[in-house]
C-alpha cells in the first residue's frame, strides 16, 4: 500500500491483508500428482522447487541451494568452482537451427556462464529408447562433440541406459557441468538493486517458435531457426565491460524472459519495469506469436541471456555485448525499481501499464 493511495475501506483492507499473508507464505507442495505444469517453469515449478526440493536438500549452514541460481558454487582448495546439471527431453530431437545434442552442451555451458563461470568439463548421460535408429544416435553424438568443441569444453564422462520401447521418447540427455568462477564476476541472484538496467542479448523467442513450427501442428511455415549457442562469449564481453557492476545474469530458457524477470525480481526483492517497445522481437516471431496468441516474452530461448547492470556501466556493457557475433541485436529493455518488490511491470507500447505475471501453465511442453 502506498501512502499516496486512495483511502481503502476497512473490509477491502482486510481482504488485501489476507491475500498479502497468503502470498508471503513459503510455497507448499500439496499437489496430488505431477502434471505437465510442474515442468513449465511457472508457478507450479516454483511450488515444486521451493515447497519440496529446497526444504529437503538445503542444509542449515549452506546458503548455496536457497539462492536457487542456475549453478551452485563450491570452493575446493581455494578455487571457486561452479556446478550444474541439466536434462533434455525436447521433441522433436532435431529442429531448424539445432538438435537435442547441441542443446544439451549449450544449455549446460550457459547455466555455468550466467553464473559467471567458464565451463571446463561436462558429463553426458543418455537414456535411449529401445528401437532408436542408430543413425539418429550417431548424429546426436556428433552434435554433442561439435558443440563441445565450439564451446571449448571437454566431455569427460557419461553413462548410457536403454529403456523399453514406450518408456522414453527416442532419447533423453542428462548433463553435469563444472566451471571455474571468473575472477571478475560478482553476479548473484540477490544482487540486483534499484537503478540497474536490464539488457537482453538479442531478439527473443526464436528457439520456442522454431520448435513450435517444427512440430508441424499448426500448418504454419516460416523461416526461423533456434538461437541455441554458447553464451560464454557474451558473458565474457559483459564481465570485461562491467566487471563487478554486472550484478546478475540468467539465460532465458523455459518460460522465456518474463519468467526470468519474475524469478529474479522475487530473489532480489525488487521491481522490474520493462519497456515493451524496446524488447527486440523478429518480425517472424512476432507474427507467429500473434497468430497463436502467445506472448514472445514467455517463449523459450536457448542462446539469449538477460543481464542486470549498474546504470553507469550499462552503455558500455551494451556496446560490448553488441560486438559479440550473435548478439548484435542486444538491447536495453528496462530498469529496476524498488516498488512493488517481486513484481514485473510492463510499460506497454500503447502507453498503458500491466503486470507481467508468472506463467501458470505451459502453452508448449518439452521445448528443451
Amino acid at each position: 500500500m502506498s501512502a499516496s493511495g486512495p483511502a481503502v475501506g476497512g473490509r477491502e483492507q482486510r481482504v488485501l491483508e489476507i491475500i498479502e499473508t497468503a502470498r508471503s507464505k513459503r510455497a507448499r507442495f500439496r499437489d496430488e500428482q505431477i502434471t505437465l505444469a510442474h515442468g513449465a517453469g511457472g508457478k507450479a515449478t516454483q511450488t515444486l522447487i521451493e515447497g519440496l526440493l529446497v526444504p529437503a536438500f538445503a542444509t542449515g549452514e549452506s546458503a548455496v541451494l536457497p539462492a536457487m541460481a542456475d549453478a551452485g558454487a563450491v570452493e575446493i582448495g581455494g578455487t571457486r568452482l561452479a556446478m550444474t546439471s541439466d536434462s533434455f527431453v525436447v521433441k522433436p530431437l532435431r529442429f531448424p537451427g539445432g538438435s537435442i545434442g547441441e542443446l544439451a552442451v549449450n544449455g549446460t555451458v550457459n547455466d555455468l556462464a550466467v553464473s559467471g563461470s567458464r565451463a571446463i568439463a561436462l558429463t553426458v548421460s543418455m537414456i535411449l529408447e529401445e528401437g532408436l535408429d542408430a543413425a539418429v544416435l550417431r548424429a546426436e553424438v556428433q552434435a554433442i562433440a561439435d558443440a563441445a568443441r565450439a564451446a571449448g569444453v571437454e566431455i569427460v564422462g557419461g553413462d548410457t541406459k536403454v529403456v523399453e520401447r514406450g518408456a522414453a521418447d527416442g532419447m533423453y540427455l542428462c548433463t553435469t557441468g563444472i566451471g571455474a568462477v571468473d575472477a571478475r564476476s560478482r553476479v548473484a541472484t540477490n544482487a540486483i538493486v534499484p537503478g540497474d538496467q536490464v539488457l537482453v542479448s538479442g531478439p527473443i523467442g526464436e528457439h520456442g517458435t522454431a520448435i513450435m513450427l517444427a512440430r508441424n501442428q499448426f500448418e504454419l511455415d516460416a523461416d526461423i531457426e533456434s538461437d541455441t549457442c554458447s553464451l560464454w562469449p557474451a558473458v565474457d564481453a559483459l564481465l570485461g565491460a562491467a566487471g563487478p557492476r554486472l550484478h546478475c545474469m540468467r539465460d532465458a530458457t523455459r518460460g522465456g524472459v518474463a519468467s526470468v524477470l519474475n524469478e529474479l525480481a522475487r530473489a532480489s526483492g525488487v521491481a522490474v519495469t520493462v519497456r515493451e517497445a524496446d524488447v527486440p522481437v523478429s518480425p517472424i516471431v512476432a507474427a507467429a506469436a500473434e497468430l497463436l496468441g502467445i506472448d514472445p516474452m514467455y517463449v523459450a530461448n536457448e542462446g539469449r541471456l538477460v543481464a542486470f547492470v549498474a546504470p553507469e556501466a550499462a552503455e558500455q556493457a551494451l556496446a560490448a555485448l553488441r560486438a559479440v557475433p550473435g548478439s548484435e541485436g542486444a538491447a536495453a529493455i528496462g530498469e529496476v525499481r524498488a516498488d512493488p518488490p517481486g513484481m514485473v511491470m510492463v510499460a506497454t507500447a500503447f502507453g498503458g501499464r500491466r503486470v507481467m505475471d508468472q506463467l501458470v501453465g505451459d502453452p508448449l511442453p518439452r521445448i528443451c
Partner: protein
Amino acid sequence: MRFVDEFRDARLGQAVAGEILAAVDPDRHYKLMEVCGGHTHSIYKYGIDDVLPGNVELVHGPGCPVCVIPMGRVDDGIAVARQEGVIFTCFGDMMRVPGSRYTLLDAKAQGADVRMVYSPLDALRIARENPGRQVVFFAIGFETTAPSTALTLKRARAEGIENLSCICNHVTIVPPLRALLESPDLRLDGFIGPGHVCTVVGARPFGFIPADYARPVVISGFEPLDVLQSILMLLHQLREGRCEVENQYARVVPHEGNLRALQVMSEVFELRPHFEWRGLGFISQSGLRLSDAYRDFDAEERFAVPGVRVADPKACQCGEVLKGVIKPWECKVFGTACTPEHAIGTCMVSPEGACAAYYNFGRYAREREAV
C-alpha cells in the same frame, strides 16, 4: 505487421484518449461492460485502462467461453476422457478449468489420453489417423467457434468418419446478456459489443439492448485503438442521449452477419431448453446441442456420461460481480475459499476474470487510480 500495427499506434491512442477525456462529464461515473473475453484480454495486454479517465470504469462481462463452463460439465468431460480407447481433445485453456475434484490436465496426468487441439479439424484429423479409437471433441465457445465445430461434423459425415463425436458446450451470447439486463440492480451504462461473435451473427441480435433496456451498444474490434474508439462512441451516445447499436468493427462485421455460417449452425445445432453457466446459474435457451440430423455425433449419447450437476458454492457471488453490483473483494469467499490456485467461480477461473485480476494486480491498479 501490416493491418495490425496501425491499430496499436500509441500516438493515435493518445489522441483518442484526449477525445474521451473531452467527452466525459466529470461529475458522472461511467460503467461500461466489455462483453467478450477477447476485449478483456486486449484491455490487460495493452493497458487500455491506464489511458482512460478515472471515472470511466470497465466491467468484465460473461463472454469468456472457457470460464463459464460449470463444474458438472467438466466432470462429464473427464468421465468420457477416462473411458477405454478414448482420445479426448479440447482447447488448451479448457484443460485447467476445475471440475468438482479434478481438471482435464489432472485426468491426463492420471492416464487419460487428453490432447490439446487448436481447431476441431485437428480432432477430425486425429480420428482419421486413429480409426480404432474413439475421438471426442469437447466443444466450447460462443457463435464465434460454433460454426467451425459444425463444419467439422459436416466434413466428418461427408468423409464417413464414425469414430468422432462431440460434447457440445456451445453457448449463445444474447441470453446471458438478457439475464444480466433483467437484473433489477444492474448498474451498467453501456456495452462494448463482442466483435468476433458479431462476425457470425451480425449486429441485429443486439437491437434489444437499446430497445428494451435503454443501453447503448458499440460492436468493437480487438486492437487497442478499436476498443478506445468504441468507448468514445459509447460516451458520445450517452452525452447526446442517443441509444442504439453502432458498429465500430465495420471492417470485419457485416450488419447481417455471416449467413453461410448461420446456415451451417442451424443444420448441425439446436437450442437446449436450458444450460447452466458457472456463476450465473441456469439460463434458458442459452446453450446448443447437436440437432437430430447430427445426434449420432453426440458423445453424450455415445458414452455413459454422469450428467451430475455440481452446484456452484452458495457463497460464490460471480453473478453480482459480473453485473457490476459488487466489487470482487466484496464477495464472501474472495481471497479465502476462492483464490486463483483454487478457483470457485468463473471470475477467478480465468486469469483475466475480474476477481483473478483484482487478486493478482488490484493493489497496483489502485495506485494508478491515485495518480
